[in-house]
């Protein structure tokens, strides 16, 4: 069963990812990105990371892709890009070679290092097998709000800075006094 889920979600992920880089139209690329993000969410579920799957769907596939679509429509750049023109000669070939080399190197590293994956933590709750359906959320909350509570607080500062910075960047300057 997990094999079936893995194969289906991998096809979703790869088709979506290839769609992002090969579709001419930016809106189509954004919709392909949604397909990839859903595939990754399915893989999160099958690896018993249910909370992260929900966050993935809400934050990534919801908020971030909607933000992309808003900007595409706001800027009026929703026309197809001509992919036949190659600005730098030979760039596509070199990029393809670099990509294949990266796949090869990373795969070799993963395969040769797969023995290094040893148990070191207290275990991850599996809500499917266990009786407590909220086990994953409770475990994650225990980790974030005890071990990583300082990083969590810093995160709120980061979000405020990002929002204020974006408002400043996107504002139209009207008066002379605003530098």
């Amino acid at each position: 069963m997990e094999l079936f889920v893995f194969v289906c979600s991998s096809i979703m992920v790869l088709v979506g990812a290839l769609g992002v880089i090969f579709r001419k139209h930016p809106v189509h690329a954004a919709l392909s990105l949604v397909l990839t993000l859903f595939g990754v969410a399915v893989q999160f579920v099958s690896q018993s990371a249910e909370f992260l799957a929900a966050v993935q769907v809400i934050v990534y596939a919801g908020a971030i892709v909607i933000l992309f679509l808003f900007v595409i429509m706001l800027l009026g750049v929703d026309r197809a890009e001509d992919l036949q023109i190659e600005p730098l000669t030979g760039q596509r070939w070199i990029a393809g070679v670099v990509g294949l080399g990266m796949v090869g190197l990373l795969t070799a590293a993963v395969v040769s290092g797969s023995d290094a994956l040893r148990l070191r933590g207290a275990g991850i709750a599996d809500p499917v097998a266990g009786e407590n359906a909220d086990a994953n959320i409770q475990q994650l909350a225990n980790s974030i709000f005890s071990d990583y509570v300082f990083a969590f607080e810093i995160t709120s500062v980061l979000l405020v800075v990002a929002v204020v910075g974006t408002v400043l960047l996107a504002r139209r300057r009207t008066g002379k006094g605003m530098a």
Partner: protein
Amino acid sequence: MIGLVVVPTPTWYLVLSAVLFSIGAVGVLVRRNPLVMFMCIELMLNAVNLTFVTVGRAMSDIDGQAIVFFVMVVAAAEVVVGLGIIVSIMRRRSGVNVDDLSELKG
């Protein structure tokens, strides 16, 4: 039903995320639209998230998922700031091509 039941090992997930990361990197290299380049960066971030979840599960450690949570927050902030920069650049010029943005070239 085939008698042999194959269960995907962590290595399968890691290889998949390696392929996803490479597709994102190639997209950043070949595309000229800044928005699509941003989407490719999101692909790479997702590949790393998948790696974190997989390794966290293989090592039976919840910290992998906690890190993915923070990566998602930082990615959201990064997209907000990046799109703000793109909007304010595109307001001054019409084209959408990163090759045209060369004012800082010495």
